[in-house]
């Protein structure tokens, strides 16, 4: 009984406290359950780190972060978005990991006048025809990282590359993105079943095609399976493997182990990117959560800082939506990626690098920056966007 009274009292205090400070509510819809749950976890933790560093404030404005799990289901994401907007009157939403959830949720959010800042998914539709003045992507357009590797592979004079991706739109976009900058021959183009776990048959065909390099896009567990099996088949000794950063984040590397060492992958960020902001971020993240941040965490952190910069500009009054939007467009925040600005379709114009997977002195698997491939790179869909 005493416990109940006590918690009631605490609740009342916290409520009255909340009223006094009147924090800006930010709704985070993200994927915490399912196999992909760690992606949402990292985005959330990165975002939270920024808030914690500001002692509950972003851009010196008190904020309240609400997080809910969409279970990777579009309809659930939508349900949560509605709750955040209607019940909690949140005007800023963020957090969605997957393109299919984003496609279902984002149009609803921005059409109702709220803002959405994407810390991960960047489907081409939202960058092109479906762009919106209230939609900002602070991560990348889906094709970007593939484009960088395509460019790098061409520079390295690989001329007969084998391509592999799951049979779904993001998979096809990925290979299209790669081919946009890759100028050589295609030794084979294979689309696998979404969610497939065994790649023995594909690897056998791949070996038979004798390519001089392999590019693959297999997000999540599929990638873990593929990289392990690729190495087990002995292919990593003969044919170099390339991929986007999605299959080489620090948490996947932990699950893949030695099999990934030496693989070159494209990313807009790396833990060893030598800027003061990034060094501070990586150190703080390690201290707070006891693990090396992934690119998802960096994107979550950047999303928080971007929102903070705009909040500061309107002094926490999001209802001044034009001013808030203008502030977001400026992208005036200390990004951990070195340089960052928005294109007219509110997608990033940023540098993109290739990294190499290494085993560091402590025996941890991580990425080392290799080369900057693109400077101020924008996505290919901007021209389709009607915004000015």
């Amino acid at each position, binding site marked *: 009984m005493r416990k109940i009274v006590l918690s009631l009292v605490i609740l009342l205090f916290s409520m009255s406290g909340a009223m006094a400070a009147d924090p800006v509510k930010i709704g985070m819809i993200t994927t915490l359950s399912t196999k992909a749950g760690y992606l949402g976890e990292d985005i959330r933790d990165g975002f939270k780190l920024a808030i914690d560093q500001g002692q509950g404030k972003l851009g010196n404005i008190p904020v309240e972060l609400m997080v809910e799990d969409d279970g990777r289901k579009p309809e659930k994401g939508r349900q949560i978005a509605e709750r955040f907007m209607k019940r909690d009157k949140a005007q800023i939403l963020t957090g969605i990991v997957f393109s299919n959830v984003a496609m279902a949720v984002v149009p609803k959010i921005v059409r109702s006048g709220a803002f959405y800042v994407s810390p991960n998914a960047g489907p081409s539709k939202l960058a092109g025809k479906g762009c919106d003045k209230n939609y900002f992507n602070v991560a990348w357009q889906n094709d970007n990282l593939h484009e960088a590797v395509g460019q790098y592979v061409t520079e390295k004079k690989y001329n007969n590359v084998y391509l592999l991706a799951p049979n779904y739109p993001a998979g096809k976009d990925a290979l299209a993105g790669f081919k946009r900058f890759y100028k050589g021959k295609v030794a084979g183009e294979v689309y696998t079943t979404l969610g497939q776990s065994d790649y023995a*048959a594909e690897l056998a*065909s791949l070996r038979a095609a004798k390519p001089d390099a392999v590019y693959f896009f297999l997000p999540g567990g599929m990638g873990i399976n593929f990289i392990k099996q690729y190495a087990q088949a002995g292919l990593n000794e003969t044919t170099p493997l390339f991929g986007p950063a999605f299959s080489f984040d620090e948490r996947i590397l932990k699950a893949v182990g030695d099999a990934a060492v030496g693989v070159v992958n494209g990313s807009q960020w790396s833990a060893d990117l030598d800027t003061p902001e990034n060094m501070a971020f990586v150190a703080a993240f390690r201290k707070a959560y006891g693990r090396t941040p992934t690119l998802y965490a960096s994107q979550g952190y950047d999303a928080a800082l971007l929102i903070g910069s705009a909040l500061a500009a309107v002094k926490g009054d999001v209802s001044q939506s034009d001013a808030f939007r203008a502030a977001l467009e400026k992208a005036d925040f200390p990004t951990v990626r070195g340089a960052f600005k928005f294109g007219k379709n509110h997608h990033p114009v940023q540098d993109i690098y290739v990294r190499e997977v290494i085993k560091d002195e402590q025996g941890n698997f991580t990425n080392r920056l290799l080369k900057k491939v693109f400077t101020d790179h924008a996505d290919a869909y901007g021209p389709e966007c009607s915004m000015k």
Partner: protein
Amino acid sequence: MLLFIEQLLNGLQLGVMLFLMSAGLTLVFGIMQVINLAHGSFYMIGAYVAATVAARSGSFLLGMAVALPVAAAVGMTVELTVLRRLYKRDHLDQVLATFGLIFFFNELTRIIWGRQPLFMDIPAWLGGAVELLPGVHYPVYRLAIILVGVLVALFLYLLFSRTRLGMQIRAGASNREMVAALGVNIRLLYTLVFGLGTMLAALAGIMAGPILAVEAGMGESILILTFVVIVIGGIGSVRGALIGALLVGMVDTMGRAFLPDVLRFVFSPATADTLGASLSSMSVYIFMAMVLTFKPAGLFPAHN
């Protein structure tokens, strides 16, 4: 031709993996008449425990030695607490309850081990590849999986044809009352069979661990294929499970390997790639639908 042989091996290896899963499931179904959707969870538990122990100790075999009894113990606990009460109930009650078990176990692994997929490596002594025929290199570990499958099939054969326990199990499958009348402790028998089924699933999980991502929910993708196997083979028949598993393994592998190439004879490359990819995803299901259309009770129905 060499490629074809390699793909045959791949199909065989996938079939063996499926056999390990489906043998346990079909036993449990044949004998207790229980539809156990949570079978995939034991596969996952096997992989998680083995990965954890192997990571700590550095020994794959120790991981296996710990994971098998742990999974069996979990399985038997589930049998004693939940499934035992469902034997006489409608299949649908079993579906609902074991669906609940899937939720529970998936989330529990996430709570215990976190969201991060675990790492599990091939033991050094099974690493690398051997040259089976000139030009056909095959990973040793995958050969080891095939070997394990053959051993398990042999073990089950001996168990059922040579041992008293095996005969009791077989008799229990065909006539429950009769076996009970003979004074066999049917409850104990059920628990043991369930433990055995669980252990086979866990073994599949352990063997898959070094090849696949060890992650929560890994059981469901193979679970459905397992059900496909036992339905094609004929429910309750271990022999049917073996043949069904090999067929499904072959159909799936061959579809993935050669379908796009075959379609290129008819369609443009781009169309062939897309169509081939879609068709090969469906190949197993199309195969099952065809088998059931012509043999509605599967290839080897256990009971007439």
